């Protein structure tokens, strides 16, 4: 039933000064790219991608950006949160050589996909784009998967100085990727899509969500595509036909907000 199940945080890990990971028991089957609605009692209920997938235990990794994530950040081991899901479609992971491009917190939700691709012996390249090296997390995790890691920072504090898309452009012209999977700022993903031309492309989108189950239309893009049901992962073909992509999202009132 799509009603919050109360779970205790069994493990809390600080990834960096703004990012935390919580683990909790949640024995439902999930695939990389799917998400939960996380109820922070008395505060809010917000969408959060799965960042760790185990049989019985799942995890989320999040950045504090506002009221709900701040309140969540203040919780720790033993605290209770409400969880419903899994929601959404998740990534299709196949091919020979995948390029992952994670921007900011988007890195978190890519991790289970990277791991699954690793298990399937797919050759992995990953670009991690952050503003500053202090924002990095999950580097070790990606290393363990045998991924070739490229880092870009806006300020050059680590790796390539510049945008992740510029780095991607370089890699795409050098190597042959069977597909590109990305999550990050929509403007970044939009540019990436333009670079990808014929390469199969999957991007995970974020939209303001309320029901999470496809009835309130709060998260809809294009012609009624529900990010919570038909998404959050969309392929390049679909995204090229959606005029909203990279252009605007909607706030809680339904008003269009330009990126």
């Amino acid at each position: 039933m799509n009603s919050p199940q109360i779970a205790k945080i069994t493990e809390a890990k600080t990834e960096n000064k703004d990012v935390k990971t919580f683990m909790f028991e949640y024995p439902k089957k999930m695939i990389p790219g799917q998400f939960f609605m996380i109820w922070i009692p008395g505060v809010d209920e917000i969408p959060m991608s799965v960042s760790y997938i185990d049989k019985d235990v799942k995890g989320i990794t999040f950045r504090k950006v506002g009221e709900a994530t701040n309140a969540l950040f203040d919780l720790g081991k033993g605290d209770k949160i409400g969880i419903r899901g899994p929601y959404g479609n998740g990534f299709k992971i196949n091919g020979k050589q995948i390029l992952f491009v994670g921007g900011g917190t988007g890195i978190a939700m890519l991790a289970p996909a990277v791991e699954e691709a690793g298990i399937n012996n797919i050759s992995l390249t990953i670009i991690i784009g952050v503003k500053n090296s202090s924002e990095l997390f999950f580097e070790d995790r990606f290393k363990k998967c045998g991924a070739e890691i490229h880092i870009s920072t806006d300020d050059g504090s680590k790796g390539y100085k510049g945008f992740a898309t510029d780095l991607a452009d370089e890699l795409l012209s050098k190597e042959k990727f069977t597909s590109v999977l990305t999550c990050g700022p929509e403007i970044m993903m939009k540019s990436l899509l333009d670079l990808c031309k014929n390469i199969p492309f999957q991007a995970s989108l974020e939209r303001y969500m309320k029901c999470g189950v496809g009835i309130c239309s709060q998260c809809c893009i294009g012609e009624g595509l529900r990010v919570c049901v038909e998404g959050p992962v969309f392929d390049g073909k679909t995204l090229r036909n959606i005029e909203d992509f990279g252009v605007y999202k909607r706030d809680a009132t339904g008003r269009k907000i330009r990126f």
Partner: protein
Amino acid sequence: MIDTTTKIASLKLRNPTILASGIMDEDAGSMKRIFDCGASAVVTKSIGLESRAGYPNPTFAELEHGILNAMGLPNPGINEFEGEIRKLKDSNVPMIGSIFGSNSHEFVELSKKMQNYGVDALELNMSCPHAKGYGLETGSDPKLVREITSKVKESTNIPVFVKLSSNLTDIVEIAKAAEDGNADGIVAINSVKAMKIDLELKMPVLANKTGGYSGMAIKPIGIRCVYEIAKNVDIPVIGVGGVTTGEDALEYIMAGASAVQIGSGVYYRGVDIFKKICREMECWMENHNYTRLSELIGVAHK
């Protein structure tokens, strides 16, 4: 051939399934999709004068036998919504503009704008079970209902429907007030005021505490309301509440509804529920030797 077309006031519909207000109707794209999935018309999200973010989440929870929500009438405000309506108008989707206000002035202003933007009919939401100052406060006072309806009627020339709540001591009294105000139809019912408490957290699940109960559990309440209203007014009734199958729709039709609206059904059976329900109705009619849906409207009153 089975004829399931229906008419509500001057509104001619290709079939009796209409998208209910608040479900997949915040933007033109979503409504277009639902129309393409078989709905004969769509009701927009309820729109007010100013933009509203609605209540904080959780705004939705599934219950054992239905759905509970307290969105809190989120909407971008009538002016911002113009774009969505104009866009939908281009696709020729029959549109019923749902509006809410706290007095007749607001309703009139909203109605005029909706009409200008191009909607085919208006639905006056006087029945939101959880929005303070709107909804039930107006919808439970027969004088106000009559006044708002007649003022809107005087200032517009498209069909005006009044949407009622079941949270009334006497729904027939309010339906008659709407009829007296020259409404062209009654829509019943809105979701039913309800609550779910989480045992682990010992607190209501919805941020707003109470919410509106919809879906299968409320169908018998909706059927009763439609039956009672149809018996006591002479204008068409549109049935809403728990329509999930073709048989549910037919039950409303027999109770006296000229059409049904579908909300929570989208959750239970997906966006193509409209096509599915139409097919199921046709199937039933074929098996029972009916060729025209209109023959079945209100037959349970005989």
